């Protein structure tokens, strides 16, 4: 089997497991997610257990996998380098938190919920894609002037 085909299979297996996990855990029911965020009201701590289960398994899985020099079907691991905690990270995460608290959707459960064909989740996902694209486009514009002034070699 070619590496590209194996990568596609690995991604499909991971996507199936991920979707099943979101559905089973209740993350695809916004009311349940909002119940978790409603710490000062009728708090539903279920999501803490979703996180505990996922982090428990992946903390171990991550360490086991990273003993390998390379993944099964690629030439390197695509894991982000450790960077600084900057204003962009915190501001972005704050905006995400507000959106999450308004709708009860984060991106994964919203994509899985598209199958319900409910207008609400369609609007949410379209707006999410638009926001992501706009941010990327504006970010590129920021980069260009510095590139233009960079010395040419």
């Amino acid at each position: 089997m070619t590496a590209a085909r194996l990568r596609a299979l690995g991604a499909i297996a991971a996507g199936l497991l991920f979707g099943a996990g979101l559905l089973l855990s209740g993350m695809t029911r916004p009311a349940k997610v909002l119940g978790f965020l409603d710490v000062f009201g009728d708090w539903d701590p279920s999501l803490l257990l979703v996180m505990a289960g996922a982090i428990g398994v992946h903390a171990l899985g991550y360490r086991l996998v990273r003993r390998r020099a390379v993944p099964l079907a690629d030439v390197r691991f695509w894991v982000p380098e450790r960077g600084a905690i900057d204003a962009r990270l915190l501001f972005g995460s704050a905006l995400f938190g507000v959106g999450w608290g308004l709708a009860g959707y984060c991106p994964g459960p919203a994509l899985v919920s598209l199958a319900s064909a409910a207008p609400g989740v369609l609007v949410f996902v379209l707006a999410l894609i638009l926001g992501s694209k706009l941010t990327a486009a504006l970010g590129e514009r920021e980069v260009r002037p510095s590139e233009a002034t960079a010395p040419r070699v």
Partner: protein
Amino acid sequence: MADFSPWPALAGGVLIGCAATVLLWVNGRIAGICGVLAGLLPPRSDWLWRTGFLGALLFTGLLAALVFPEAIGASPASLPWLAVAGLLVGVGTRLGNGCTSGHGVCGISRLSPRSIAATATFVGFGVLTVALVRTFGGLP
């Protein structure tokens, strides 16, 4: 604690942890939904595995909608508010380089300080938002 469901939550979490581990083991990739999705928007990169991952995710939703529709709920927010929320999530996750899966699950699992800070921030602002909405008697 009306709707507390510890066992399905824990089992679902374990599946999500397995998913993240499979994607790292086979593809060497972080199972962050925003990151996978962002790479599919032009300019595209590595579309095949990204399409496979997101396609499989959508397929689980379709299957659930057919055999167990109660698993998928609707948001209590109105359409205009869902548009606002979607924009905030799209902008925020692109600026912050990740969402619940990338930072909350994958990042915390490898003890990334950035991901721990991001997760504390978005959970904190999520809690604050829900508390404010409750204080004002719901979204207008």
